[in-house]
């Protein structure tokens, strides 16, 4: 049994069948990069996994537990859906930080609201909130932004904003952290600092799934690379094999058009 499994996930928008039965699995602590040309379904797959979209068919399992099942989602309570969704974290291409909150408050908003659901919240209020603050400071340090804690997103560079977004996602300790083209909205000179944070997370064996166009990065950091085309996984394997000896003509063509 794999740590994380996607079985037969399909998704259509109107008559456009974007995902056509995706099967995929990964182990705890692995880093998987998903590559492919635009329109191949990479982002939709990520959105189905993080449940921003509901897949039409298929199942998603974490540690053998179903976190999504197209056959039964209608019966779940909203709170149960949220609980399952929190198995995953998502870092967006456009960062999507909350502009009215400081960096520290961006990190603490969701954990604080979740903490209110703890049965002993009223008794341990101070303690729980202090724990969250401590965790936020530790994670900020991890992404190298300790001195920016009190600043607002609009005062930060794109690279710094994306590092805050990563920190915000880490706050809820997701089992699998997903990235949707995390450096695509950044100026080229700012991608390095974000990729460095991802490399550090990989060293700490955070399980990550990264949709990316950064082939060099995918090759260096990933344990496995998945190539998507036309809504299915066309080829997958360890980065060296996949980049050196692509089997399918689609992947050969894709790599020929991509600068490494």
């Amino acid at each position, binding site marked *: 049994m794999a740590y994380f499994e996607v079985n037969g996930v399909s998704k259509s928008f109107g008559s456009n069948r974007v995902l056509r039965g995706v099967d995929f699995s990964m182990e705890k602590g692995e880093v998987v990069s998903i590559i492919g040309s635009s329109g191949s379904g990479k982002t939709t797959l990520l959105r189905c996994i*993080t449940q*921003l979209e509901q897949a039409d068919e298929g199942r998603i399992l974490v540690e053998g537990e179903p976190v999504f099942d197209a056959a039964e989602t209608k019966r779940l309570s*909203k709170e149960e859906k949220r609980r399952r969704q929190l198995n995953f974290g998502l870092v967006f291409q456009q960062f*999507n930080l909350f*502009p009215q909150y400081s960096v520290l408050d961006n990190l603490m908003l969701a954990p604080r609201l*979740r903490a209110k659901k703890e049965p002993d919240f009223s008794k341990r209020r101070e303690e729980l909130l202090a724990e969250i603050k401590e965790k936020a400071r530790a994670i900020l340090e991890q992404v190298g932004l300790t001195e920016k804690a009190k600043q*607002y997103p609009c005062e930060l560079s794109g690279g710094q904003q994306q590092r805050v977004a990563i920190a915000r996602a880490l706050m*809820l300790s997701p089992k699998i952290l997903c990235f949707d083209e995390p450096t695509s909205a950044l100026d080229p000179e700012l991608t390095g600092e974000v990729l460095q944070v991802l490399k550090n997370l990989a060293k700490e064996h955070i399980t990550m799934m990264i949709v990316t166009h950064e082939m060099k990065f995918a090759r260096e950091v990933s344990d496995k690379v998945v190539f998507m085309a036309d809504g299915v996984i066309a080829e997958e394997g360890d980065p060296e094999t996949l980049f050196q000896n692509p089997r399918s003509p689609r992947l050969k063509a894709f790599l020929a058009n991509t600068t490494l």
Partner: protein
Amino acid sequence: MAEFWSSLVAFFERLSGQFPIVFQALNSGFLQTLKLFAVTLLGAIPLGLIIAFGSMSRFAPLKGLTRFVVWIVRGSPLMIQLLIVYYFPGMVLKNNWWGSGETGRFLAASFAFIINYACYFSEIYRSGIQAVPVGQQEAGQVLGLTGGQIFFRVKLLQMIKHIVPPMTNEIITLVKDTSLARIIALQEVIWAGQAFMKGRSGISGELWPLFFTAVYYLVFSGLLTVLFSRLEKKLSYFRT
């Protein structure tokens, strides 16, 4: 030249004699203006939100109906709307449910103003709601926030920031639009000023009290401008 000065002095002598009486009358007229202004805001600010949700409804008939009403209300003169609201019940239905006298006129004017301004506000709200990027909703969702938490903790302040400048505009327009209630003889400040032309409290044929009413509007809209620019400044610490 000497003639000019003497007539000017004579005018100011007359004016200073009349001023206390006129000032008192205009003050009580302006109180009515303020009441209409306040009641309109109290009614139209929440009603506008309901209309905004109606015009964004996924239920097509509701959306169509709401947008039709908004078109009628925004597309026709407020003065005509006031006349219709005030006279329709009595003249057509033979039942003047507004009641008689100043109270009746105030009720009818309030009704017309609330409906009219709610429609304008609804469009401002709609633009504010649609200006918040969908990514904010999605970021809240993946962080496990509930729908209510996303609205109140994430989106609301961003919406308010978006709508403060157009709302300021609309609210300052409302200050001056209250004068339209003169058409149904509501005794607001213009009515009070005009009364001194026809004759009131021993003063007649005087035009200056009517002109002087503009000072009230200027002072009040000046205050509002200061107030709203403070609010705008307060919200300028973040950018969306």
